[in-house]
């Protein structure tokens, strides 16, 4: 049961026992844990088969962050973490049912804002929606994201509802750092500012995390990397949360743009570069699992991998009564079980391919996929790229790079290519299902080889064969 999907990873782990690296298969070490096996946000592998949706029933917040502007609201903007829709509990349930009827892959319903899911005005709505979803769709997992200020006192209620995943955003464990990120918090009828605010917040966050872990929940920590403010501090945050037994610590890049009107955006606070992000992840990741496949979903995101089908399910498009086909949902799960077994077999073949290429240097390569763990996305449709490092001992998942982080509209093709080239920085090749002549030439100019010879094969197998310079084995399961 505990056999990892990419067995080469285990080989690599054996050769570096004291410094386990993050692997594509790292989440699979615990994939037998039913709490994460089908959870796309916790298991990198499940990410290929299951979808999550976030329901925006929690607009009220209890703290102010310098990277957030609560007035900001734009339907064209796909800025992660921001939603344009605010739903009542009834509308939220209607949306969940509509998505469940249309998207059998949906396995997780989360509440992540747009404010804080546990703030005074939000908590009653959060709990009401969870109760309603639990009753209508017992097979769906519920999860919640919070800033942690009001977590400790809600742990018993969360436990009662059977919520076993929570995400806490924790950016600092030192008030001196925290006060540069949080101008104020609302706590027990008072607005606290400055160091007092940061100190209270971090104490409540750590207490909440401890209580949730003690209650047996899987706690994931998100930290926003803010260059010059908490980059040197995040290893300390990592240590603090690790000591408290959190399940995953995920570092996300600050999104900073003057147009968003945030304090950081207006002050010209830069977002981290890919290299900065990786170096901080590395500094923290020495003895931890990191979740590099996270893509900072918006609070109303719907879909798999990088897709966001949220626009299909806005309130005006919802049917009054959605027909849930429970059978289709079960069927989907059995097909997935077969696919997963098949992917494991492919990983074994990948082992063999890599073994032939012993003593070769590490190469970074990007993959376009739309799910199923396969190289199956047309380059022209790709909005994000999965990056891997491959060498003769195995492949390791570097992370997801998005080429649409700030804006979807308003960019010409050329600009988009620029964003794509930036996302592909450092890659020797990109493996796609198909690519047009022009973009292929443009990539070639930038020194990146666009390869469509591994279309439809599993990612592990395609990468290994590309690396080993082998032709594909005769059988390509489509």
């Amino acid at each position, binding site marked *: 049961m505990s056999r990892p999907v990419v067995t080469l990873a285990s080989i690599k782990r054996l050769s570096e026992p004291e410094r386990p690296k993050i692997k594509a298969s790292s989440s699979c070490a615990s994939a037998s844990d039913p709490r994460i096996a089908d959870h796309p946000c916790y298991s990198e592998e499940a990410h290929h088969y299951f979808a999550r949706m976030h329901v925006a029933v929690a607009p*009220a917040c209890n703290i102010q962050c310098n990277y957030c502007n609560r007035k900001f609201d734009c339907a064209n903007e796909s800025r992660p973490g921001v939603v344009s829709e605010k739903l009542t509990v009834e509308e939220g349930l209607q949306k969940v049912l509509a998505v469940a009827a249309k998207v059998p892959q949906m396995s997780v319903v989360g509440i992540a804002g747009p404010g804080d899911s546990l*703030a*005074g005005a939000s908590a009653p709505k959060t709990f009401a929606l969870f109760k309603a979803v639990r009753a209508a769709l017992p097979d769906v997992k519920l999860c919640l994201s919070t800033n942690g200020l009001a977590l400790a006192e809600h742990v018993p209620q969360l436990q009662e509802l059977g919520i076993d995943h929570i995400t806490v955003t924790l950016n600092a464990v030192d008030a001196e750092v925290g006060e540069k990120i949080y101008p104020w918090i609302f706590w027990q009828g008072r*607005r606290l500012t400055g160091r007092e605010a940061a100190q209270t917040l971090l104490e409540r966050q750590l207490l909440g995390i401890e209580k949730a872990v003690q209650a047996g929940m899987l706690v994931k920590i998100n930290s926003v990397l803010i260059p010059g403010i908490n980059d040197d501090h995040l290893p300390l945050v990592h240590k603090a949360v690790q000591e408290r037994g959190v399940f995953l610590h995920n570092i996300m890049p600050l999104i900073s743009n003057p147009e968003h009107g945030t304090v950081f955006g207006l002050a010209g606070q830069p977002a981290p570069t890919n290299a900065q992000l990786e170096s901080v992840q590395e500094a923290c990741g020495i003895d931890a699992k990191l979740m590099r496949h996270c893509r900072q979903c918006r609070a109303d995101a719907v879909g798999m991998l990088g897709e966001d089908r949220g626009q299909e399910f806005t309130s005006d498009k919802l049917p009054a009564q959605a027909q849930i086909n429970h059978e289709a949902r079960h069927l989907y799960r059995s097909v997935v079980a077969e696919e997963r077994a098949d992917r494991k077999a492919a990983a074994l073949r990948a082992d063999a391919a890599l073994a032939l290429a012993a003593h070769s240097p590490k190469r970074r390569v990007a993959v376009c996929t739309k799910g199923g763990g396969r190289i199956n996305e047309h380059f022209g449709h790709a909005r994000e790229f999965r990056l891997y490092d491959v060498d003769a001992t195995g492949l390791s998942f570097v992370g997801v790079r998005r080429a649409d982080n700030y804006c979807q509209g308003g960019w010409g093709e050329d600009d988009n290519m620029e964003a794509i080239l930036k996302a592909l920085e450092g890659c020797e090749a990109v493996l796609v299902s198909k690519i047009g002549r022009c973009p292929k030439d443009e990539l070639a100019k930038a020194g990146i080889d666009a390869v469509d010879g591994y279309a439809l094969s599993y990612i592990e197998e395609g990468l290994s064969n590309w690396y080993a310079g082998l032709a594909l084995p005769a059988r390509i399961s489509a």
Partner: protein
Amino acid sequence: MAYKIIASMCTGCGACEFECPNKAIKESDGVFIIKADKCTECEGAFDTPQCAAVCPVDDTCVPA
């Protein structure tokens, strides 16, 4: 002796409605409004007007 909400600034988040000790705040057309006759400026209940303390937009809950 009452507060008001500047409608053009209000995000409609509802944080103030929940905190008001006098149920003086109601939603109307996506934004929130304060019923002046119910508002006590939180006198006797809290040190500071709760709506102003929790509102994410500066200078939105202000003395009428």
